[in-house]
C-alpha cells in the first residue's frame, strides 16, 4: 500500500505552493516597509539640511542665530570622546573576553559573571549615565569633563564589546588551539599567535559597532550635565565639551524654524560619521576574515 500516491500529492500541491508565495510576499513587504521609512527619512533630512552644509557650518561654533550656527565644537567633541572611549573600552573589553574564554575555569561563579555581562548589555543607557554621574563626576571629581563622559560611555559599551569578543574567540576552532599547544606553545603564545589573529575580525567589527552606538548616544551625557552649546574647543582631558547628538537635540527643540534646517545639516554630518565607522567595520570583517 502506497501512502503518497499521485492524487494525494497533487491535491495538496496547489495550496502548498500558494502558501510558499504568501510567506515570501509577507517577508518582502516587511523589508520594503523598513527600506521605505529609511528612504523617506533620508530624503527629508538631505533636502532640508543640504543647503545649510557649507565650510562655515564646520567652522562655526553654536550660536543664537541659525545662519551663524555651526557644528565645530560638537564634531570635534564627538571625535575626542571617541578617542577616549575606543582605547578604554577595547582594552578592558577584549581583555575581559580573553580572560573569560581562555583562562577562567568553568564553574558556577564564572557562569554567573558571564550571564551578568550579557544582562548588562541590555541595561538602559540612562542607568549608566547615573552611574557615571555618581562615580566619575562626583566621587572622582572629574566634573563634566571629556574624561568623565569617556569613562561613562566606555562602561556603557563594555558589555557589548565583551560579548562580541567572546563570541569571536569562541568561534576559533578547537583544533587550532590544539595544534599550537601540541607544539609546546604556552597559553599566551597560543592566544597571541593563533586565537587573536583568527578572532580579530569579529572583535573589531563588534567593537566598532559598539563605538558607533556610543557616538550616537545622548541620554547618559544629559544625565552627566554635559553642556549643549560651547564656544570653545576642549583643550584637555578635563576640559568641558559637547557632542553631535547633544547639539542636534538642542537645535531640534528650538522654536525658530530655521534651526530645523541646521539640525538636519547636523544629522547629515552625524550619519556620515556613522556610515564611515560602519564601513570600516565591514571592510575589516571582509579583509581579515579567514575561513576554516
Amino acid at each position, binding site marked *: 500500500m502506497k501512502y503518497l500516491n499521485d492524487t494525494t500529492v497533487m491535491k495538496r500541491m496547489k495550496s502548498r505552493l500558494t502558501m510558499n508565495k504568501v510567506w515570501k510576499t509577507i517577508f518582502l513587504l516587511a523589508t520594503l516597509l523598513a527600506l521605505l521609512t529609511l528612504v523617506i527619512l533620508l530624503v527629508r533630512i538631505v533636502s532640508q539640511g543640504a543647503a545649510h552644509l557649507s565650510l562655515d557650518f564646520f567652522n562655526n561654533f553654536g550660536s543664537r542665530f541659525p545662519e551663524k550656527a555651526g557644528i565645530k565644537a560638537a564634531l570635534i567633541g564627538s571625535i575626542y570622546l571617541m578617542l577616549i572611549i575606543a582605547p578604554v573600552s577595547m582594552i578592558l573589553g577584549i581583555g575581559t573576553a580573553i580572560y573569560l574564554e581562555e583562562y577562567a575555569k568553568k564553574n558556577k561563579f564564572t557562569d554567573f559573571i558571564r550571564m551578568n555581562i550579557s544582562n548588562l548589555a541590555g541595561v538602559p543607557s540612562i542607568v549608566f549615565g547615573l552611574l557615571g554621574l555618581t562615580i566619575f563626576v562626583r566621587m572622582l571629581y572629574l566634573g563634566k569633563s571629556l574624561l568623565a563622559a569617556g569613562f561613562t560611555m566606555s562602561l556603557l559599551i563594555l558589555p557589548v564589546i565583551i560579548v562580541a569578543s567572546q563570541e569571536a574567540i569562541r568561534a576559533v576552532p578547537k583544533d587550532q*588551539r*590544539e*595544534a599550537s599547544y*601540541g607544539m609546546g606553545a604556552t597559553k599566551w603564545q597560543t592566544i597571541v599567535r593563533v586565537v587573536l589573529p583568527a578572532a580579530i575580525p569579529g572583535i573589531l567589527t563588534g567593537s566598532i559597532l559598539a563605538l558607533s552606538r556610543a557616538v550616537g548616544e545622548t541620554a547618559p551625557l544629559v544625565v552627566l550635565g554635559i553642556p549643549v552649546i560651547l564656544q570653545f574647543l576642549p583643550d584637555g582631558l578635563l576640559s568641558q565639551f559637547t557632542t553631535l547628538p547633544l547639539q542636534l537635540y538642542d537645535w531640534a527643540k528650538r522654536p525658530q524654524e530655521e534651526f530645523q534646517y541646521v539640525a538636519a545639516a547636523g544629522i547629515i554630518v552625524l550619519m556620515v560619521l556613522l556610515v564611515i565607522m560602519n564601513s570600516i567595520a565591514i571592510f575589516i570583517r571582509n579583509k581579515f576574515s579567514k575561513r576554516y
Partner: protein
Amino acid sequence: MVELKNKMTNNENHINKSSSQFAGETNNATDKNSVFLTKNFNLWYGDHHALKDINLDIKENEVTAIIGPSGCGKSTYIKALNRMVELVPIVKTNGEINYRGRNILDSSYEVEELRTRVGMVFQKPNPFPKSIYDNIAYGPRIHGIKNKKILDEIVEKSLRGAAIWDEVKDRLNQNAYGLSGGQQQRICIARCLAIEPDVILMDEPTSALDPISTLKVEELVQELKDNYSIIIVTHNMQQAARISDKTAFFLNGEVVEFDNTDKIFSTPRDQRTEDYISGRFG
C-alpha cells in the same frame, strides 16, 4: 646552555635506569630503550573510568599501533602521553607515565617542555590559516628562533622530511588551506617535525584522507621511524598490520594484548583480540 646540558645528562641517567629496570621483564628482549613506560595508569572523565590500569612499554624507533573499537580509550591514551587530555577540565589521573625515565604526570614536569619533545598529528588536518612557510615555522618561532636563514633551513628540512617539499616548494607563501586534505595532513606532519621531536603521536592521521593520500602518509610513517618513535592510533587494522612493529589492542579502557604486530595478527593470545581482528565485533 649549561643548564640544558645538565638536563640532558640527567635524562640519560634516567634512560639507563629505566632500560635496565625493564630488561628482565620483557620477553621479546631488545636492546632498544623505552620512550614511554606506562605503569598502572588510570584516567577518569568525571565518573567515567576511561583507562584502567594501563601498563605499556613503548620502545624507541618503532612504530607502535594502538587499535580497538570506538570508545575503547585509545585516543584518550595517546592524548595522555603529551597531556593534551588535560584540556578537558574534568579529567583525573593516577599512576605513572614515564617519558625517558621521568614521570610526566609530576606537577614539576612542564607540559610545554613535554610537548616540544612529543609532537602530535591530529585526526583532522589542522593547519593554521597562514602561509605554508609560517605553518612550518610556527614551532621553531614559539621556541624563540628568529633567524631567517635558520628558519628557511628548518622549513625545507621539515617539508622534505614529510615528503611534500617538491609539491609545495614553489608556493611556500600561499595559504595552507589551498592544499588538498592529504597535503594538509602532510603539512601538519612537517609542522610537527619542525620542532624536532623525539616521539610523534598520531591520532588516526588518515581517517579523513582518501586512499592515495593515506598510502603516502603510511609510507611516510615507515620512513620516519628511523629517526623518531611513532605511536599511531588507528581504526584501520590493515593499516596497523602494514605499518607497525608493535600493536596494542585496547578494549573498554584496558590493554587486552600488546605484542609484536605480526604476532598479534597471526597468533593472538587473547580470544577477544582474535575476535576483533577477524572482524567479529568493533
